[in-house]
């Protein structure tokens, strides 16, 4: 048992080093060792991919346990469609510049999440099914509004498509770099706080009634975790776009490799999620003449892989 664990961790670190190397030095025309390009373009991309991928998988794992539903992904709370709505609205009303796009995405997502909360925690009741349904309905509503604004705004559609489907190309100026640093420091703090709840999450995965009988204050617990998770996902979507499938598949892969205990699921989901998105980004920017939205890659590889896991588990 112990031996196999060490082998897994060894391969994981090896893979990690490989991905870091490739994402820093591999360009569209082979390997590339230009210092300015690496520092100004590759490194920010890699950091963004690392944080976004890790956070999405981490939050997906938490939500699956919290809502007792293995098919949940981080966007179940309406965050992705809210962010897209915010940006499409921004494009519609103004000549939104690149640097303040994340702010609009953040506000749109925040609005969507608040709406879902108000629907789900109506009159102090917390019902998991209502929360999922509220998320789905709000997502549909915001998607339709997004499409409406996309049709009416005069901007080229591919700008919004990159937000809807994820893209790690990022250029920093002073303003968005400051926001990026603040938001991600908070993200890291929140991730640590959530990790300290890993044991309660185990109990929660047995059902909220059982969790309550094991001493978890379920109402308070749900509210705290939803707040932290919404913030993290919103922050990541605002900068990296709605990268799909990572938050759904990676937690399952992690459970498959390391078992279901949340004390292991959380950290390893983060690492595997980060690896997946960093790896997908390498493919997205090097296989085609134009840069592909990253969700195309994650879903293309993620879907068959998910089917494989399902089949193996059945």
């Amino acid at each position, binding site marked *: 048992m112990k031996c196999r664990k060490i082998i897994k961790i060894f391969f994981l670190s090896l893979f990690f080093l490989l991905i870091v190397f490739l994402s820093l030095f591999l360009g569209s025309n082979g390997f590339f060792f230009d210092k300015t390009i690496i520092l100004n373009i590759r490194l920010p991309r890699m950091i963004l991919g690392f944080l976004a991928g890790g956070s999405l998988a981490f939050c997906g794992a938490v939500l699956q*346990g919290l809502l*007792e*539903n*293995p098919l949940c992904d981080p966007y179940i709370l309406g965050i992705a469609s809210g962010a897209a709505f915010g940006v499409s609205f921004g494009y519609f009303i103004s000549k939104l510049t690149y640097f303040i796009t994340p702010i609009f995405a953040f506000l749109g997502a925040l609005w969507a999440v608040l709406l879902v909360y108000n629907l789900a925690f109506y009159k102090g009741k917390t019902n998991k099914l209502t929360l999922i349904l509220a998320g789905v309905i709000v997502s549909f509503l915001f998607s339709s509004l997004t499409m409406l604004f996309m049709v009416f705004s005069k901007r080229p559609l591919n700008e919004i498509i990159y937000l809807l489907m994820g893209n790690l190309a990022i250029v920093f100026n002073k303003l968005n770099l400051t926001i990026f640093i603040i938001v991600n420091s908070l993200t890291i703090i929140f991730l640590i706080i959530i990790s*300290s709840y890993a*044991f*309660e999450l*185990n*109990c929660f*995965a*047995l*059902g909220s*009634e*059982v969790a*309550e*009988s*094991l*001493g*978890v*204050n*379920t109402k308070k617990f749900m509210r705290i975790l939803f707040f932290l998770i919404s913030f993290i996902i919103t922050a990541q979507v605002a900068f990296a776009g709605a990268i799909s499938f990572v938050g759904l598949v990676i937690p399952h892969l992690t*459970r498959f490799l390391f*078992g*279901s*205990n949340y004390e292991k699921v959380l950290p390893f989901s983060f690492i595997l999620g980060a690896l997946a998105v960093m790896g997908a980004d390498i493919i997205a920017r090097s296989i085609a003449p134009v840069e592909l939205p990253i969700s195309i890659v994650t879903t293309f590889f993620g879907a068959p892989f998910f089917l494989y896991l399902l089949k193996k588990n059945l």
Partner: protein
Amino acid sequence: MAIFTYEIKNLYFQYPTSAPLFKGLSIKIKEKEWFGIIGPNGSGKTTLLKIMAGLLMPQKGTVLLFNNNIFSLTPKERAKIIGYFPQENFFIFDFTVKEIVLMGRNPYRKRFSFITKKDMEIVERAMELTGTIEFKDKKINELSTGEKQRVILARILAQEPQVLLLDEFTTHLDIAYQIELINLLKRLREAKNLTIVFLTHDLNLASLTCDRILLLAKGEFVGCDTPERILREDLIEKVYKVKPIIKPHPLTNRPLIIF
């Protein structure tokens, strides 16, 4: 004065869309008592048990647990006293048996701390007692229903409770394990002054184990007394609408119910 584990006064509970339950039920349960709850389907047994576990809040009435209002205790404080065995158990993720039993230590854990040696000892002991230690590293969904039930009992014992609330926990057990676990509970009751509230459909089991039995029908109190006084032909027929034959058990003289 005797110590009461539970003092329930004027209980009144109603689900949003159905008829009110209990209508002023009052019962007292003594420490170390083996207290049975029986009644037909829909009589409110499980609801009563959930109220006693602090999981459902009644609209009216008070529930005192060792003289404390159960709803003013925090979930952690409650979990150190009460071990609750739910009727239905689902495992959407494949935890190992050991991981599940370890969850019983949750009320004793502090944030940012690791599992202590003491926790591990208690968990191992709980698994030994319930005969689950031999498959401690197996995945829970690979086990049979009866084995799962023993794992859940182990988890509850790991809580080191003073009160056990058991909702039909013998249903899926074979007769050998029924007897073994009932004997285990009897021993634990002697050793740790456990109070056991035992909800079951098996009238004979209730008759053989319980000190007193509460009989409910459609959410209303029918009687609460010793097995001999509750398991009577007239009462059973009135509540269950079937006519039983009742004989004294050849060994214990407790009522034996035959249909």
